[in-house]
């Protein structure tokens, strides 16, 4: 009976093989015919299908190999059993040893990650509050790494040492209140310390007392799909009000020039800020949520349509100094979007330059005012004869990037 079954199985298997071969060849023949019939096809798919088929076959071969190994192990075990010898492979021991091996290799892997990838992360914070965040981060990292290593050593060592043995019975140990109290209280205390420090850091970032001698420079950032607009306050130091209902092709931010504070506001293509002077960012959005993310300064806040949010920080390292520190002459500070905002989300960036106060003063006077003759006409303001505002000092490539971003935006809108 079993022999017959075996034969019939074999026949079936043989039939299946023949059928597969036949089906495959006919499919390939059809494909060949199809490609021959349509020579205008842009991509010749046949080599691709072949390579896919190659990988699929490779995988099947691997599966076959695993199946054969499995069968071999099974046969080996059955013969041992038939000869009344002890079980051939002690799988508990195998798995326990694999856990031990995993622990050792894993610890090395963690060390490698910390030293190699750990060296590729952001350089030191370039802002005052960023230093506090980094301190907080390092403390948390030390505590969690100790716990991480210790608990994993315990986990895998227990797995290794207490693997099953027929000679032994497990130790009946349902509870120990003292022990449980200890490992409730210790994490609670450690976390309380972290909470307290985190809370104080958080307060120091968001509840700043303004120093009358060192008033922050206000800069307004407006996000839209997929670009940023930067507006400087001008000589009066006040960024004027705007109204989204006034947005037109010429007045992209919807600035209301009835507010006199707006008359001297300037636009810029990059965010240039003087070192060691507080900067107050005024963050708004025109369309969807975006996130203003400036990781070198440890600054991030979402820009929300219909709501203004503020972030105040003080840059401490100029771009030039940072280039020296990172040993990378091409180093640039950037800010970019970190909240999903649409198809162009992955390319929404602007350059940030931290410069000395003198350089900043020289740069800011060269920036064009937002108000131009088109807008003057619109708001019935006296025209200026020579509106030849100095051309943007920004590098041409960033301007080009901007326009391409706008273009892709328009494309997306059309679709």
């Amino acid at each position: 009976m079993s022999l017959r079954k075996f034969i019939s199985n074999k026949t079936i298997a043989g039939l299946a093989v023949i059928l597969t071969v036949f089906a495959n060849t006919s499919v390939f023949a059809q494909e060949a015919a199809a490609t021959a019939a349509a020579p205008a096809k842009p991509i010749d798919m046949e080599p691709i299908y072949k390579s896919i088929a190659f990988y699929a076959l490779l995988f099947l071969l691997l599966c076959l190999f695993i199946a054969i190994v499995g069968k071999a192990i099974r046969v080996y075990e059955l013969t041992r059993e038939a000869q009344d010898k002890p079980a051939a492979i002690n799988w508990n021991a195998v798995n326990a040893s694999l856990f031990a091996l995993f622990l050792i290799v894993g610890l090395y892997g963690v060390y490698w990650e910390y030293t190699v990838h750990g060296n590729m992360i952001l350089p030191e914070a370039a802002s005052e509050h960023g230093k506090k965040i980094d301190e907080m981060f390092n403390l948390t990292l030390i505590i969690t790494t100790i716990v991480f290593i210790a608990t994993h050593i315990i986990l895998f060592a227990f797995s290794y040492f207490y693997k099953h043995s027929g000679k032994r019975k497990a130790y009946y140990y349902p509870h120990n209140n003292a022990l449980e109290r200890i490992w409730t209280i210790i994490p609670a205390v450690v976390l309380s310390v972290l909470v307290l420090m985190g809370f104080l850091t958080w307060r120091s970032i968001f509840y700043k007392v303004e120093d009358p001698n060192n008033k922050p420079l206000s800069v307004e950032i407006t996000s839209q799909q997929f670009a940023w607009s930067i507006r400087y306050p001008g000589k009066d130091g006040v960024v004027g009000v705007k109204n989204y209902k006034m947005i037109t092709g010429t007045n992209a931010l919807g600035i209301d020039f009835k507010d006199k504070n707006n008359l001297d506001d300037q636009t810029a293509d990059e965010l240039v800020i003087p070192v060691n002077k507080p900067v107050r960012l005024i963050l708004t959005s025109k369309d969807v949520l975006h996130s203003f993310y400036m990781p070198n300064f440890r600054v991030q806040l979402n820009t929300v349509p219909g709501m203004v949010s503020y972030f105040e920080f003080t840059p401490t390292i100029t771009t030039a100094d940072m280039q020296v520190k990172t040993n990378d002459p091409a180093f640039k500070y950037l800010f970019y979007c970190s909240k999903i905002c649409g198809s162009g989300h992955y390319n929404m960036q602007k350059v940030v330059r931290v410069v000395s106060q003198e350089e900043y003063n020289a740069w800011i006077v060269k920036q064009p005012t937002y108000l131009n003759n088109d807008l003057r006409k619109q708001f019935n303001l006296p025209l200026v004869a020579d509106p030849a505002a100095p051309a943007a000092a920004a590098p041409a490539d960033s301007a080009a990037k901007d326009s391409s971003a706008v273009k892709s935006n328009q494309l997306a809108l059309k679709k």
Partner: protein
Amino acid sequence: MSTITIQNNQHHDSHDDHAHGHHKETFLSKYVFSMDHKMIAKQFLITGIIMAVIAMGLSILFRLQLAWPDRSFPILETFLGKWAEGGRIRPEFYLALVTIHGTIMVFFVLTAGLSGTFSNLLIPLQLGARDMASPFMNMLSYWFFFTACVVMMCSFFVQTGPASAGWTVYPPLSALPKAIPGSGTGMTLWLISMICFVVSSLMGGINYVSTVLNMRTKGMDLWKMPLTIWAFFLTAILGILSFPVLVAGVVLLIFDRSFGTSFYLSDIVIGTQVLPNEGGSPILWQHLFWFLGHPEVYIVIMPALGISSEVISVNSRKPIFGYHAMVYSLIGITILSFIVWGHHMFVTGMNPLLGGVFMITTLIIAVPSAVKTFNYLATLWRGNIRFTPAMLFAIGLVSFFISGGLTGIFLGNASLDINLHDTYFVVAHFHLVMGSAAIFGMLAGVYHWFPKMFGRMMNAKLGYLHFWLTFICAYLVFFPLHFLGLDGVPRRYYAFTEFEFMQKWVTVNIFVTWAAIIAALAQVAFLFNFFYSIFKGKVAPQNPWEANTLEWTTPVEHLHGNWPGEIPTVYRWPYDYSKPGAEEDFIPQTVPFSLTMSSNMPHDFEGNTEAERIQEEWMAAQEAKQKTIVD
């Protein structure tokens, strides 16, 4: 008198069976519109597995894009058509992929696939009930879930593509089809699917809670319930209280999208077109969403923790350490999880004062989680560990829970979150702690209770292969991603090509993608093992793992009503493993203390003086006997 009652009972039960025998079961009533909790559990499981395979496939697609952003894969065009013109995935479709991957994994796999399967299977079986409190509602629960899956998958076949605003679907992006094409019909389908899903989950949850509270067998008081049941019970409560809030949010979003209201929209200009919406706030959606969304992550992880408690205890042949502490920490997590949602919103522009408050509550929730971890470790200590595939996955869960939980301490700290929010650090964190840990809990459950579900055993060696490949690859995939986050690389970026500083991570991306592909292929070992064993596996013995809980007292062959005769009575807690003085290393819950005089301990009697007296008398008699033998 008492004998008469028992006889009556038995008579009644056999009558019941009799009736069942004659009741004609058609294919439709047995396999499709089944009201038997075991069949519904299998339906949830297999649907969950199919959805998991789909979501995993989506993740491989976007991993390909991240690893080789400049290379064309013409085969993709064959399958995806215009979404991968020229063999390169389009940015809109990339976002759709991450959105649907997240939605399926979080809701359909790790909520319905995990809770739905094991709550349905184990609540009646481990509590000693014939079925759920409302079998009909249970059936509806599955079919609403199935509808939700179908509707979600349909969105791949609409002109504008599936929802693509991220799985959290933050408006205004999700509300404005002009902002992203996926917010058209695709988003409507997403919202409909989600409502069906919440209906399913609520019906399931109400059923679980009422079954646990009302239908426990004689002797099964709350403190004798296995930790699995505690976890499912508390998870169901969490779901019942939080899912309606999501529906409220979703309904308001539907109104904004289709009827011109402004709950979430205000001051919006698309291009130069000023939208009429005024007075809404996108932050409101985030509050409503995360009021569900944070309990949701515990809805995902708590059943996995419950399952691993059971599996670790059975396979260490030891009682779970600190049973009461385990229950109280679950209760603590349940309560605290309602007041931590704001930690997802530290940098949304929410009042910073709130940020401080949410930071405190968030870090407190780490305490019960730490207690659970230490208790697992203490359970392993001096155990007699049998590495069944289920046990391997449970140990893997503990490892992931530690690794992912610790990075939560960074993200829960508002000041650190400023720089880590929405970066790959977050991606790494939650994929370890709720992705990998929860899926490992689910796989542990599948390997452990497969004999109960299908009456057959799975192949252990394929299970080992599956575990080791998945475990290693999961770490290889997610561990390096932390460092991308620490370098300020945001998540949901279609390509790293536009930033100079991200170039150095491209090789890491290639490595991660290969690890992900190997992990995905390793699942073939599981899928083959699972489906093959349903039909061809070795027939399971009555109690294959020598476990104490009630489900192993039911016959291997399923029958409607679970137990052929009377439902067994429960006398003891479910964790009497390796009790000193007992012959076997396990004592099932159905064994009364009178049969285990040699292993009883004072605390077993919970202050029952009569029982203590009997025990003492027995001990005295034993001692006297010993003496006479010695003499």
